């Protein structure tokens, strides 16, 4: 087989076919990048490591924030709620935008058509289009509603006590995200990464019935829109999704990340159960081996992931969440090398 571009490699895997080699892309924390290629920008790093795609998230690259208290690092996000920046520079919601259903009556939606939101995407398209997959993060409607809009407690409470409140909130958020996706596709997005947890380590956050009723339908609308424009979608959710994975697949997800090993998700079992329906994206442990394992342990674990899930294609080998700042740089390099060592198709690992 001829050598594919990174974009072709990822798209082939998402079509559940075998590319030339198992694809890989990842968001890599600055601290790890610095340990590998000091001083490099994220984009230079992607090129240096020859990653098959570049991924970024809406929360950090296209949402607006306004400082409320500089000393306490508190800002107001574009939805109207408050976030606090942590020592790792993550904006964590501390107060939701919507306190009661009445707030929705006068709610003013941020404008997804503001041009500045797409500056980074434009840069990525200019630099990587056609060569590497441009993977744009879209926060899932459930995650957006739960974390930023209504708050965890308010959202879960409304699911039981006032379902119409959830439906109204979902419609507002869908309006924004669909327009955001339209603009992203118009500018050259290759793949959407629909981000937001549906499960905890032990089990899904809400019952299967609620997952079908509240989480599935708005997710499906995002996927259906992307598909109508020919763009595939990867769904990210941590946690144990054994009881609900079929809802995600039925909604049309092309890829599923990260098949969370910390929640008891074995990628071999996932391959057997639904590897013929959705591309598996994962799952070298960024909780254990990439953080505290040896280079050889990472190499062996990566090989094992490919052995279990790579056969016939339909695997994008990645970490089990992200390359966060606790990952040893040498271990990330070991993972990438192992993917290229063991991921050549046809596989010969058994």
């Amino acid at each position, binding site marked *: 087989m001829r050598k594919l571009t990174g974009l072709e490699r990822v798209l082939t895997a998402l079509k559940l076919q075998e590319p030339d080699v198992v694809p890989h892309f990842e968001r890599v924390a600055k601290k790890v990048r610095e340990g590998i290629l000091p001083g490099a920008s994220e984009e230079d790093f992607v090129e240096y490591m020859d990653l098959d795609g570049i991924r970024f998230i809406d929360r950090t690259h296209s949402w607006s924030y306004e400082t409320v208290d500089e000393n306490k690092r508190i800002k107001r996000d574009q939805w109207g709620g408050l976030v*606090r920046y*942590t*020592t*790792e520079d*993550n904006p*964590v919601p*501390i107060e939701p935008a919507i306190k009661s259903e009445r707030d929705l009556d006068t709610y003013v939606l941020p404008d997804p058509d503001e041009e500045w939101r797409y500056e980074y995407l434009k840069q990525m398209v200019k630099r990587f289009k056609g060569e590497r997959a441009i993977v744009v993060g879209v926060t899932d409607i459930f995650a957006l509603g739960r974390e930023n809009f209504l708050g*965890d*407690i308010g959202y*879960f*409470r409304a*699911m*039981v*006590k006032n379902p119409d409140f959830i439906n109204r909130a979902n419609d507002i958020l869908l309006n924004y995200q669909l327009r955001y996706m339209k603009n992203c596709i118009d500018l050259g997005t290759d793949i959407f990464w629909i981000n937001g947890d549906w499960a*905890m*380590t*032990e*089990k*899904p*956050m*809400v*019952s299967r019935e*609620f997952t079908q009723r509240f989480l599935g339908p708005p997710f499906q609308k995002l996927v259906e829109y992307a598909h109508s424009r020919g763009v595939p979608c990867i769904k990210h959710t941590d946690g144990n999704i054994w009881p609900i994975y079929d809802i995600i697949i039925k909604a049309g997800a092309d890829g599923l990340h990260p098949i969370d090993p*910390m*929640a008891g998700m074995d990628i071999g079992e996932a391959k057997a159960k639904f590897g013929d329906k959705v591309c598996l994206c994962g799952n070298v442990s960024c*909780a*254990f081996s990439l*953080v*505290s394992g040896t280079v050889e342990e990472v190499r062996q674990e990566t090989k094992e992931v490919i052995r279990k899930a790579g056969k016939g294609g339909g695997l994008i080998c990645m970490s089990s969440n992200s390359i*966060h*700042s*606790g990952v040893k740089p040498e271990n990330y390099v070991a993972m990438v090398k192992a993917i290229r060592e063991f991921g050549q198709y046809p596989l010969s690992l058994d």
Partner: protein
Amino acid sequence: MVNLEELSQAVIAGDIDAASELTEKALATSVPASEILNKGLVPGLQKVGDLFEAGEYFLPELIVSGDAVSQALELLAPLLGKEDAPYMGKYLIGTVQGDVHDLGKNIVIMMLQGNGWEVTDLGVDVSSEEFCAAVDQGDFQILGMSSLLTMTMPNAASTIEALKMAGLRDKVKIMVGGAPTTPEWAEKIGADAHAKDGPTAAKVAAALRGKS
């Protein structure tokens, strides 16, 4: 006469109005507040915890049951002190530095409050210094630390070390929890106990106080 079993059932069903009405009725018929708490609300919330552990209840059900208990507790609160009702104590809680997850911690808080604890929440991304200052200045029986990431688990250990250095370690019992944590790890870092989730945390906290 109000049947306190009905009150438990209202909590289990997450029926806020019914829980409040039954609590009001019980008070009106001179049922002691401590009995309403211990024979109505607490057993209800414990059953909710059991259903959560058994996989029959999920976060929404936990929240609305917690709401039912909170509303009822507001009615009881002015009376509980007067009647010298059992009171579990003061609980200090936070998510360790570098970690931004608070959903699990918030569920723990709700379960603790429903079981008679007065909880002070330091929030997420709490440094060793902040934990030490709060322990020093407060009058807490238990400190709970949550960590959802392997990379932030060492910050729970370093907080315990900081408490030792400051001579504060013996002032509180320490509980730790969070997805990647284990009882073995808790013991290794010198914590007194481990809890894997909210319902378990309430049981473990009671045991640490000798009130289980």
